[in-house]
């Protein structure tokens, strides 16, 4: 009964996100990766000497590290064909009107200024390598909240920056964290002072415009004791026939009693390789929540992780992946229980369609002495046709005592009975399938702010109609 709708790079993505505007850039580095390019980036940014050294050292590490072979097939990435640094505007604006017209038009089409007016406390917009727009509600800056781009943070808050930068994810962590450390540009820097609660979300929007672009933003979030912040990121790119690379590093420190929620709605076009390292350190009674939605890209490899450093720390990963034709979403999460009495959950929902492939890859580690820890992993996969695939790779290392570790995994297909029931009420097959898929990911959607939940359901609908590439 299941019919396989045609999936192709379609008009809907192109129309809504996949458009591009002419390149009229201040600076475009040559293709390829070498120490000269790295020096050039650092020089353009007028960075201190230590950062240049950090970058060059990271480049060495990147060169020495082999490509990871355990996940998706990355052999097709041609590192020499990528532009590592593109600067589109000579300054950062605090009003949308000040942006170059093409860039402003881009964000207008993506609806970012509108979202800012309606329901955000601060917005950062990164275009290619640099953050071109930034805003933060005045009352938050008065309370001492810092929300800026990472380059500005290095310049304006050097001590705070140096104290934490690279401490959660060192360059040598993996090949792509090394690459990011060498050529990073842009990203968000957030500091929430003790006891300050940022009740309205902050958002960053990452946009790739040029072909063969490499975007390497670097985000650092520090939640001081008893604070709270919800940070949301979205990302899109035009559809090109050649590949682009997005390789971010996100480091988060959640201090005692603080809570951080990090929500991602990744919707890259299907020519983008999305290889991201995201990690948080959670201290006593702190909570770190990753809400991670992956719809687009050709290949995504992303395993948000939480290091539970002190008793009472709590980590959550809630992730959704949708893989259509030609896509491989290799996603999951890691929970590293370093201290006793820490808890974690990973909930992963994946949908594969039209020959798409999803993999859940997870790691639960409980160190010796991390006694009385609890962890629960649940992965549910939904396959929409016989051509699609889903795999589960759970790794558990438990060296602690008196722990609880649960794992549940299900793989299901859209049931004929559910389809028949919905269709018997006049609902078309494609709409019924979309409803079932949206119902399947509802545990995820309900964690999103309303506007994003609506947007996600709409994105799923586009995917289901087979029109998103």
């Amino acid at each position, binding site marked *: 009964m299941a019919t396989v709708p045609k999936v192709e790079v379609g008009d809907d993505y192109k129309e809504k996100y996949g458009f591009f505007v002419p390149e009229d850039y201040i600076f475009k580095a040559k293709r390829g990766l070498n120490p000269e390019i790295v020096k050039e980036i650092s020089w353009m940014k007028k960075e201190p000497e230590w950062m240049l050294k950090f970058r060059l050292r990271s480049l060495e590490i990147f060169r020495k590290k082999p490509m990871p072979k355990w996940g998706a097939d990355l052999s097709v990435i041609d590192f020499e064909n990528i532009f590592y640094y593109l600067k589109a505007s000579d300054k950062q604006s605090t009003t949308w009107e000040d942006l170059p017209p093409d860039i402003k038009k881009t964000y207008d089409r993506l609806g970012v200024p509108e979202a800012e007016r309606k329901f955000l406390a601060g917005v950062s917009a990164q275009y290619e390598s640099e953050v071109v727009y930034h805003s933060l509600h005045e009352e938050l800056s008065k309370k001492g909240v810092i929300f800026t781009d990472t380059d500005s943070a290095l310049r304006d808050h050097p001590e705070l920056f140096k104290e934490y930068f690279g401490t959660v994810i060192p360059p040598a962590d993996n090949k792509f964290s090394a690459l990011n450390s060498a050529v990073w540009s842009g990203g968000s820097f957030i500091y929430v002072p003790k006891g300050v609660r940022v009740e309205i979300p902050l958002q960053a929007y990452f946009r790739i415009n040029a072909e063969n672009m490499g975007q390497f933003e670097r985000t650092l979030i520090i939640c001081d004791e008893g604070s709270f912040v919800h940070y949301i990121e979205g990302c899109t790119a035009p559809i090109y026939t050649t590949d682009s690379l997005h390789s971010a590093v996100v480091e988060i420190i959640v201090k005692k009693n603080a809570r951080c929620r990090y929500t991602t709605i990744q919707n890259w076009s299907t020519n983008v390789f999305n290889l991201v390292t995201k990690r948080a350190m959670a201290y006593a009674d702190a909570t770190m929540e990753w809400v991670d939605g992956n719809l687009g890209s050709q290949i995504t490899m992303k395993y948000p992780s939480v290091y539970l450093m002190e008793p009472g720390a709590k980590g959550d990963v809630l992730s959704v992946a949708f893989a259509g034709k030609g896509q491989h979403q290799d996603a999951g999460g890691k929970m590293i229980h370093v201290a006793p009495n820490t808890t974690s959950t990973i909930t992963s929902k994946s949908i594969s369609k039209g020959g798409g492939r999803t993999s859940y890859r997870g790691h639960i580690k409980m160190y010796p002495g991390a006694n009385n820890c609890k962890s629960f992993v649940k992965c549910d996969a939904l396959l929409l046709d016989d051509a699609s695939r889903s795999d589960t790779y759970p790794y558990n290392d438990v060296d602690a005592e008196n722990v609880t570790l649960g794992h549940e995994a299900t793989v299901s297909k859209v049931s004929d009975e559910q389809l*028949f*029931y919905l269709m018997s009420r006049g609902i078309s097959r494609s709409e019924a399938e979309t409803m079932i898929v949206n119902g399947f990911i509802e545990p995820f959607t309900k964690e999103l702010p309303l506007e994003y939940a609506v947007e996600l359901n709409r994105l799923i609908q586009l995917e289901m109609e087979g029109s998103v590439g």
Partner: protein
Amino acid sequence: MADFEIRDLKASVEGRQILKGVTLGISKGEVHAVMGPNGSGKSTLSHTLMGHPGYTVDGGEAIFKGQNVLALEPDERARLGLFLAFQYPVVVPGISMTNFLRTALNAKRGYDGKDKSKQISPKEFRALLKDELDVLHMDDSFLPRYINDGFSGGEKKRAEILQMAMLKPEIAILDETDSGLDIDSIKFVAEAVNRMRGPELGILIITHYTRILEFIKPDFVHVLVDGKFVLSGGPEIADRLEKTGYSEWVTDEPQEVA
């Protein structure tokens, strides 16, 4: 010719023929009851008429508004004006009843996400919903719940009739709607169905027992045995079955498990 004309319908499940030539005409304003023992083909009849993919039509036709609905997808049949109240309503997690009802209503009205003028307004939707909830003695606490998820037997059946009331079909098939219901629930369900009864609606009640027919009086009763009608007539047939059961046609009838 009746408004809904089933002619010599033959259908099979997993290669085994269950319906062996059923002919039945239902016009709007009429209530027909199809009664039969277990295994006689009652649920095959309802599922085949609505287009369940597990049932294969081997022959015959079902003409409604000049079309053979057996050639249509289930959603097309529904939009044309057919309705099936399920014996076992299906659970769909993550979708609220409200969302489901609104989507179904919009689909029925021909709204495909583009022409907003066809969309039901929130005000109209709420008003319609409230009226029907009252008739069924349901409160609105079930609206945010997922489709049939965790519903009691009675709630499921009432929810089916609620959908029927909102979608306003022209031909409605009630498949074992009384099974698993306590007497109060049967009364509420029957009251709601009787309220819809009229010149705009033809009803086909499929049932094993006569109980529901005490509350929804049929105009015609047909006895289905081994995939064929063995007897058709007026409501008096139901009274006869009430006394003698299906023993005239079947020996050793297995116990109802519903």
